């Protein structure tokens, strides 16, 4: 039987899960937002990683077909998108039900009726819109998680209503979304994939009517058109593979939990590891020459020094102040009323360097408003704010012992292109051009990957303390 190892990184903002095989290859990744119920967040991330692993298996099985017909890869990608939508839909249905329940228990009779009516109306309108976003792949990286997507779409609709209904409508959502977010749903992989294929059938069949002129994504359309004629040919062999993949037992031989909420994970004590070790180990596994790791997470920033074996020799972290962490960016995004993912691209458009002196998140917010008042552009202000957060990180690195070659940048914030640019610039400026800077597309998963690697290693090493408590748990 194949053995798999799971690493769960329960961060302050997002929870990540990575599954690796015995060759230390990543076979599945899952991510969700961290919520009040940590166990659910960890379980959802794990569930997602398992589904993702199955889709990856599917791609591997279809390797030959995909080589001949590259458009099939798009088909699998579409299936995965719709598959995610179907999971989303289940939670959305539950939210609708919960919102009606909340309404019934909270408002005076006359208001109740209006709220019920509005909720039904809004859901009737946002549900198809979200479905369309998933099917056409329009969701992009803008909003990833249930809460964000629902919040955005719902708020947009509520704003169209009478002003005096705004507060009750938002109150219902606020009161209902948390319990729904904390629910864990079980899905049948096979059934959900078939359902997704059915939904896609209508998408592809309807392709004839698509207007294609002036569309910039011409290549994409070309693949879609190819699919239109061909996807049915793959369906038979796909069905066979789906059976095999759905039946494949993903046996998790051991797991390790890490991250800010690790102590709250329902794992045995010996399966809990510090995120400092996990980030360093994950980064070192991907880039074996790594000697310095910078991890900017939601709620703390860590500068870690490792040796040639991936062993941490020292670390320095800021655990007293949010300036310099992901939360700082989150706060700024809220202040500007834009999404977190829009910050980086806007900051990159800055045409002038603005110095943000504030070292405090809250006062940076005040400084931001002041600068807006005197007419400074959002882009320039954001450029300054990004530089400020990176300056904090660079000072942390200095305190941890400086940058040694090679330097690897991990954590969710590494996805922000403006942060990345500032980190690269400042590392080169302070430590020289010869420093090799590593960034990986999986940077946000480094902690979970390190955890999974520890999970695998613990079995090999057979620590007397760990051996007795090794977990043999069936996950699906």
């Amino acid at each position, binding site marked *: 039987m194949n053995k798999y190892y799971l690493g769960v990184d329960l961060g302050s903002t997002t929870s990540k899960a990575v599954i690796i095989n015995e060759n230390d290859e990543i076979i599945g990744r899952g991510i969700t937002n961290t919520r009040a119920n940590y166990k659910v967040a960890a379980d959802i991330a794990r569930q997602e990683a398992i589904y993702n692993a199955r889709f990856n298996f599917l791609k591997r099985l279809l390797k030959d077909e995909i080589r001949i017909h590259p458009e099939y890869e798009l088909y699998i990608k579409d299936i995965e998108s719709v598959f995610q939508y179907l999971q989303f839909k289940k939670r959305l249905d539950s939210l609708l039900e919960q919102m009606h329940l909340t309404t019934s228990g909270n408002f005076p009779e006359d208001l109740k009726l209006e709220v019920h009516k509005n909720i039904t109306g809004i859901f009737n309108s946002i549900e198809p819109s979200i479905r369309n976003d998933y099917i056409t792949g329009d969701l992009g990286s803008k909003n990833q998680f249930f809460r964000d997507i629902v919040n955005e779409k719902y708020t947009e609709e509520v704003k169209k209503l009478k002003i005096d209904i705004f507060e009750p409508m938002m109150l219902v959502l606020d009161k209902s979304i948390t319990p729904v977010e904390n629910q864990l749903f079980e899905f049948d992989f096979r059934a959900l994939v078939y359902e997704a294929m059915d939904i896609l059938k209508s998408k592809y069949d309807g392709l004839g009517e698509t207007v294609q002129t002036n569309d910039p994504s011409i290549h994409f359309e070309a693949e879609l058109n190819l699919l239109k004629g061909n996807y049915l040919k793959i369906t038979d062999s796909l069905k066979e593979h789906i059976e095999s993949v759905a039946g494949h037992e993903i046996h998790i031989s051991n797991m390790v939990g890490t991250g800010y909420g690790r102590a709250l994970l329902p794992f045995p004590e010996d399966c809990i590891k510090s995120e400092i*070790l996990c980030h360093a180990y994950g980064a070192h596994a*991907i880039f074996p020459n790594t000697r310095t790791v910078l991890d900017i997470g939601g709620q703390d920033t860590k500068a870690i020094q490792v040796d040639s*074996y991936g*062993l941490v*020799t*020292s670390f320095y972290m800021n*655990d007293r102040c949010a300036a310099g962490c992901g939360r700082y960016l989150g706060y700024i995004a809220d202040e500007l009323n834009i999404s977190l993912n829009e910050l980086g691209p806007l900051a990159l458009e800055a045409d002038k360097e603005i110095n943000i002196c504030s070292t405090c998140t809250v006062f940076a917010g005040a400084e931001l408003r002041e600068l807006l008042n005197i007419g400074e552009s959002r882009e320039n202000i954001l450029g300054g704010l990004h530089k400020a957060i990176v300056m904090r990180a660079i000072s942390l690195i200095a305190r941890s*012992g400086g940058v040694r070659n090679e330097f690897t940048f991990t954590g969710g914030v590494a996805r922000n292109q403006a942060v990345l640019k500032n980190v690269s610039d400042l590392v080169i400026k302070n430590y020289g051009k010869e420093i090799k800077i590593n960034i990986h597309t999986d940077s946000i998963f480094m902690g979970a990957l390190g955890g999974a690697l520890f999970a695998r*290693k613990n079995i090999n*090493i057979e620590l007397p303390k760990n051996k007795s408590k090794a977990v043999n748990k069936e996950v699906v």
Partner: protein
Amino acid sequence: MAAEVIKEKSMILQKEMIAKLFDDLSSAKDTGKKVVYTFVPGNLSELIHAFDMLPVYPEINALQSGMRKQSGSYIRDAEKFGFSEDVCTYVKCDIGMMLNGNIGPTGKKLPDPDLLLLSYTGCFTFMKWFENLEQLYPGVPVAMIHTPYQEGGKITPEMTEYMVKQLREDVIPKMEKVSGKKYDETKLKHILEDAAKTEDLIVKIFDTTKNSPSPIDAYFAGVYYIGPINIGFRGTPESVEYYTELYREILERVRLGLGPVTPEGEVTERYRLVVEGPPNWTSFREFWKLFYDHGAVIVASSYTKVGGLYDDGFRHDSTRPLESLSEYCMNCYTNLNLPQRISHLKKCVTDYRADGLLVNSIKSCNSFSAGQLLMMRAIEEDMEIPVGFIESDLVDPRYFSYSNIKNRLDSYFQMLEQRKIITKEIKQNIPAQTGI
């Protein structure tokens, strides 16, 4: 771990010694004994005894207030009185205690000072502290002895001469005047003989951590062991008796192969550490527990040398009484320069076969904390040992963040554990992880 801790004879002895000192202090005004306020690093307790005076150590009172959970309100009172948030919390705790009637650790009122003796070593705050005490006790004479910093890494004859001159021309005349007694060098020499005996014993005691398992924790228990020597008993027959007894008990632990005693019984040694910096006093037990729960035993610490560094052979010398008192002051840990402190810590790591070095950086304490990151870096690079850095405060409970410290310590202990595993792997010739 055993639930009950049996009080050793040495513990009883120490308790009696301290109780007697505070009894003597509380009745000092009746018995006519003169009281000298002074500091632990560079304390001239032999000289104080030679004049039959009693010492009061404000830092000891502050740390005792910290352990008895009173420092928080004392500090707030001192801040209300006008002290800034950034002032050393020992100072604020002490001032707060004085503002609240100067009730000492045993619940008895401490007498006002008859002399303020400032032999500050490496800590400029001491000077400011006594300037404040001077205002609180107007008219009380101040004797200040300027201790030259070991900037060049050694004590030169000129430095000793400079100190002896101050002792002869300023300190001793003031002590004669306050005590009403003539300086008696023969008496001082006798006291210094006992001081040297005490110093021999304390070096032997802290050397027992060379054993594995270490019979003692040289930091968390170490701070209790240095109690008598640091609060004025160095150079007394009681102190020789106490340290003889303590040494005997520890040797017995070595013979039985026992590990250190903690509030929850004996700890099984898993990691051996050297610690730089003072401990946190307000959550001392919690802080200690974070270590012994992981089997982390401190085999050497710089803090236990704060009242005197005897490892490298320095002893009070009855043949050179004032010279050796001067050299003692200059040789205190916080009066060493950074390369000296680095080399001392490195020697501790080597001699006591430590797995790593941990720094507890104290927000309040510049004399300890300045340069600690630099020292840590130098040691890490030179010795290739895992180093850890935590932050807390002496007696301000607002600066002890349990979860932050726990998070860093957990990571640090896992670092040590991981190193053990990988080192084992390397020895077994298993190739290291080389990427995905």
